[in-house]
């Protein structure tokens, strides 16, 4: 009987949402037992995490939980601080990036970054975008023109600035400046885009534009974003990792983290009943 009438496959309860982090095969960033110390103080405690390709992964957690520090491991920005020491493993595309013989310049070309405070160079809009290309040896004017236009279009800024490419970037509004910084980062075609609270200094409309942009960009880039704004994480991310005092507490699909977190600390944090 049951052979003749095989039971209908049960509809997946989470149809439409991405598979669980453990179930996914293609991860682009992998850390294993990653610990980080500022001098003697341990800021990250043995974090193991796999970040999927071409999705948006959000890092959330209270201030000082280590989420930004963790993010900055992926492009070795922590190197700028003298006292930082890192243990454990971090691989991008299967390659170790923490070793002493890693070419940090090459790494940062592959892993772009956008910062909390928009930081355009005091140069023209054009020169801001062209900066990275010039650094890496592009001199041809035609190529520069093309990439500048493509990057500005990619950052949904082209129509707003196309008539004043050679005016100072500092004349742009805060939201435009931040999108310019995103355009500058994507101009050198990184694989991964790290964003450290990119909208925290922006008004709601500028924030919305940046969020829309992030959703567009995930078709081409893997995006890892640190945010204090949980609603922002729910709006733009596919996966969310919750950090607390240097530890990775929970990492799951965003819908699950925000509707049904498994750990009490996560639940307490996302419902605002913290501490």
């Amino acid at each position: 009987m049951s052979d003749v009438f095989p039971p209908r496959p049960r509809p997946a309860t989470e149809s439409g949402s991405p598979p669980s982090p453990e179930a996914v095969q293609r991860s682009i960033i992998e850390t294993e037992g990653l610990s980080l110390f500022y001098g003697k103080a341990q800021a990250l405690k043995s974090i193991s995490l796999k970040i999927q390709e071409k999705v948006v992964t959000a890092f959330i957690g209270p201030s000082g939980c280590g989420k930004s520090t963790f993010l900055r491991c992926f492009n070795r920005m922590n190197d700028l601080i003298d006292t930082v020491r890192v243990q454990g493993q971090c691989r991008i595309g299967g390659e170790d990036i923490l070793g002493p013989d890693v070419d940090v310049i090459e790494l940062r070309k592959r892993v772009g970054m956008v910062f909390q405070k928009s930081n355009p160079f005091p140069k023209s809009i054009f020169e801001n975008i062209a900066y990275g290309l010039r650094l890496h040896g592009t001199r041809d004017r035609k190529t520069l023109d093309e990439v500048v236009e493509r990057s500005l279009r990619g950052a949904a800024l082209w129509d707003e600035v196309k008539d004043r490419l050679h005016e100072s970037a500092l004349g742009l509004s805060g939201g435009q400046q931040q999108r310019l910084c995103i355009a500058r980062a994507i101009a050198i075609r990184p694989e991964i885009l790290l964003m450290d609270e990119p909208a925290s200094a922006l008004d709601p409309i500028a924030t919305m534009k940046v969020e829309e942009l992030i959703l567009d960009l995930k078709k081409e880039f893997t995006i890892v974003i640190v945010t204090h704004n949980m609603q922002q994480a729910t709006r733009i991310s596919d996966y969310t990792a919750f950090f607390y005092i240097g530890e990775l507490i929970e990492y799951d699909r965003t819908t699950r983290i925000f509707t049904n977190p498994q750990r009490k600390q996560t639940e307490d944090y996302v419902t605002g009943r913290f501490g």
Partner: protein
Amino acid sequence: MTHFEADIRGLRERLLTMASLASTAVRQAVKAMIDRDDDLANKVEDEDTALDTLEKDVDEVAVLLLLRAPLARDLRLIMVATKISHDLERVGDEATAIARRARELNREPLLKPYVDLPRMANMVLEMLETAISAFVDSNSERARAVIPRDKEVDLLNKQLHRELTSFIAENPANISRCLNLMAISKRLERIGDHAKNIAEEVVYFSEAQDIRHTQPNPDASGAPAAP
């Protein structure tokens, strides 16, 4: 307690008030039928407005809470609260309908002593109360136990229909009374459905698992017919 938590508590309290009003309404409507008590039937009808008001009230509080963008357990609670309040308001409507039918029945002599209807009423009331107590304790086990009992109520309803159909066939003078009793039976069966819905919402609230429409339906299971 934060203001947010106080409002969440207010939402729960409204739901519990609605639950108690709804089950009282059902109990009294059935009693009005058994005791042939027109006054009680009128009272049930009059008191239904309280449930209507509370349903709107729950939605209003829920919207205010949603404005604060709640997450996780709070989000699930608010989502579930609006659904449960809707189910409870419907239970109140069913009770009113039963009371109305009871009044009509009171105008004719008793067809036969009521056995199955009170039994059915007790079953759905127990389902309703179990579902609500499961909500109060956030006990998904207890809520899950409610769901299969809806089948029993459905069976009882069908059985009653057959019985009453045969009464009609015997004597056309029974028609109006039988139709009224069939309607009451159908109403009670609907209350069972609402109790089941509430139980499913409670499971979602406590486990974040949507179990609606996942029970294998014996009538429709073998969709792809064997060649």
